[in-house]
């Protein structure tokens, strides 16, 4: 009996001691961001013995759905959660994430360190800071050198305007093996052109779909023009009609079946690492056509309100380690081409490093220049819904020949109706 008590006592002591020594932090992230989160967690654990970080990695959609469930029930929320730009508007609503502008976080003091637009994306119009940006995804046009050379068009000529791009598209889209079907297309999906164009010319206080006052901006010249150009590309047969993130999409990159693809800088990392590693050296990066400057993607870290209060201080410290530490940001830059959110890094020597994948181009300087030109866009809780509704309208125009004006009026009406019930 005595021995049993002794064993129990030792066991109990060791549990309490180990919990006093080691603090466990859970971090939820999605892939491919996970490829930079994991090494950073390891580096943090090395620098802080006694801290154990468990990194939960899930696929993009599953990660965000799980996060919603955890926030809804207040159970199982991670201490640190990654949020992608496509989902951030869901979490802009009250309550889901800690307001980092308040004590003990006082994140407001760091605002000057970050690119303006990325800071705006992670905050709400009423000044709450819900997340800190970690990857700010400058939007660029990735293109195949060989496809341009074959038809003798220079990239600069093709990106002068969106109509110039169409003119190039008409030359590059063609049948190579003579079987009557085109083998090379300008672009994978005409909808990508639309995505690029609605990011153009945003003024201060405007988001893609809503302005700061919550007005719906869908039935505007910006959208009419984007719909028109996308439709022209589809009707001329210049797009391969391949949706993003499908096997066909990856195959098209491997085969060089599409000449250009608009995306964030992270696409370079994805192409290099797993989408089309064999095409190294064939790619280049340029500005978006028509003098557009836009962000394309982006990732953020925040602290769920439902997380364990005892861990929040440590969670904040880990976020600061990932986001405010220059070395951490550069490591993420190297692993997945996640463009660092810290402005100070734009003058870092490593910005001048040429990219082997992009045929020795100093693409990082291009990305940095793009970032300087992106205007601040605001995040609205209705962004996800608006994107879905406008995407639906675009697919009707592209596939069903629906009149553009009607489709946009309809989309505006639907978004207005949906926005009414957002609080």
């Amino acid at each position, binding site marked *: 009996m005595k021995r049993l008590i002794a064993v129990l006592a030792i066991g109990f002591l060791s549990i309490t001691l180990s919990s006093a020594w080691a603090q466990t932090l859970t971090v939820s992230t999605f892939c491919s961001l996970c490829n930079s989160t994991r090494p950073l967690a390891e580096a943090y654990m090395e620098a802080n013995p006694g801290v154990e970080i468990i990194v939960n990695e899930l696929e993009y959609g599953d990660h965000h759905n799980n996060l919603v469930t955890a*926030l*809804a029930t*207040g159970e199982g929320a991670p201490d640190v959660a990654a949020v992608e730009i496509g989902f951030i508007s869901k979490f802009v*609503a009250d309550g*889901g994430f800690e307001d980092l502008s308040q004590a003990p976080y006082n994140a407001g003091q760091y605002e000057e360190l970050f690119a303006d637009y990325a800071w705006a994306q992670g905050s709400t119009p009423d000044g709450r800071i819900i997340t800190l940006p970690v990857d700010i995804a400058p939007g660029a046009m990735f293109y195949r050198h060989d496809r341009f050379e074959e038809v003798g068009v220079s990239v600069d000529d093709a990106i002068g305007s969106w109509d110039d791009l169409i003119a190039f598209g008409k030359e590059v889209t063609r049948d190579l093996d003579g079987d009557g079907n085109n083998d090379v297309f300008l672009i994978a999906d005409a909808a990508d052109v639309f995505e690029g164009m609605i990011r153009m010319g945003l003024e201060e206080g405007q988001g893609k779909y809503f302005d700061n006052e919550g007005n719906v901006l869908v039935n505007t010249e910006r959208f009419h023009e984007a719909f028109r150009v996308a439709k022209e590309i589809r009707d001329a047969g210049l797009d391969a009609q391949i949706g993003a993130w499908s096997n066909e999409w990856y195959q098209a990159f491997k085969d060089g079946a599409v000449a250009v693809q608009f995306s964030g800088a992270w696409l370079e990392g994805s192409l290099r690492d797993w989408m089309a590693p064999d095409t190294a050296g064939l790619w280049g990066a340029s500005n978006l056509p028509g003098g557009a400057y836009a962000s394309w993607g982006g990732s953020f870290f925040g602290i769920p309100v439902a997380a364990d209060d005892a861990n929040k201080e440590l969670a904040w410290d880990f976020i600061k380690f990932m986001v405010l530490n220059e070395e951490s940001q550069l490591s993420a830059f190297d692993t997945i081409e996640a463009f660092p959110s810290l402005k100070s890094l734009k003058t870092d020597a490593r910005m001048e490093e040429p990219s082997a994948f992009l045929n020795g181009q100093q693409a990082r300087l291009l990305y940095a220049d793009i970032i300087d030109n992106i205007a601040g866009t605001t995040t609205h809780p209705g962004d996800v*819904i608006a994107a*879905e*509704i406008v995407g*639906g309208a675009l697919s009707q125009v592209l596939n069903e020949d629906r009149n553009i004006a009607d489709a946009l009026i309809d989309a505006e009406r639907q978004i207005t109706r949906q926005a009414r*019930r957002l609080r």
Partner: protein
Amino acid sequence: MASSSSMVKQEESTFETRLFAFQRKFAPYLFIAPFFILFFIFGFFPLLFSMYLSFQSWNPIQGLGAMEFVGFENYLWVFTDPDFYKSLYNTLWIGVVSSTAQHIVAIPLAFILVLRLKQLRHLFTAAYFVPFITSTVAIAIVFNTFFGTQYGVLNQGILAFSNSAPIEFLRASSWGSWLVAWVPEEPIRWLGRAKNIKPALAILVFWKYFGWNTVLYSAGLATIPKEYYDAAEIDGANALQRFRHISLPLLRPVIFFAISLSIIGSMQLFDEPFILAGSNPMGGINNAGMTVAMYLYREGFNYNQMGSAAATSWILFFVIGIMTAIQFAINGREGLDSRG
């Protein structure tokens, strides 16, 4: 001393008998308790909670504390939402087309299986049943390839037919061209055109569930006494007459049951269109394949409106209730009595 020991004994025995009586009385409850505990947690509580939720406005991201009573606002929202009616129409369309085809094929098929194939019947029934037990996700992925525009098997078949010599001959001749006007000359974009999405989904649903109905009808036919058929045969009835005058009438209770299941199943259709037609936009272009269950999902998980999603589920419940009641009124009483 003696009396005290006997008293103890008596007390013991009464305690034992009481225990025995107690466990006799309550053991059965204990044995069925696991079901009821699980049912209350996973069946009854969610039922009540969704009813409660349908009167609340709740964005789940804000946590459980963010619920707010809004009366019938959620129901009003759903009833004034054009997308709800569109999803109801889609669901009914797919349901009517695929179910009708299922039953029209399954009844004669079961008749042939049971009365003609005899022993082979089980092999065929099993084969027809395979789609029903196969994972919907796997099926939807296979059908995605099946419906492919350029290389899909279905289009390859259609084009081979369209380019076959007789069709080409008719198409070229002036008098025959109208005969073959319905034969497509271009590959059909099954999932890329709003007007084709519902037929494509109906084909998938038909293929997946007709085997289930065949099994139901086979079982029903197997219960019909062989003497009836023998008597009819002696009276000179041919196979068609035996089917029409013996099998069909005696099968009515099974038909009633199978149609009820079809109504309930097709009103709740979700997985197949969700995977095949996609969720962005929900149900494919122009939401042409968005069923009520998908509308409900979109309200709850894409739009974060758990209240109106719960309201939709209750509206769906009542729609199913009404439709089953109508089917009972038309088919049920008579069908169920026909055996008596």
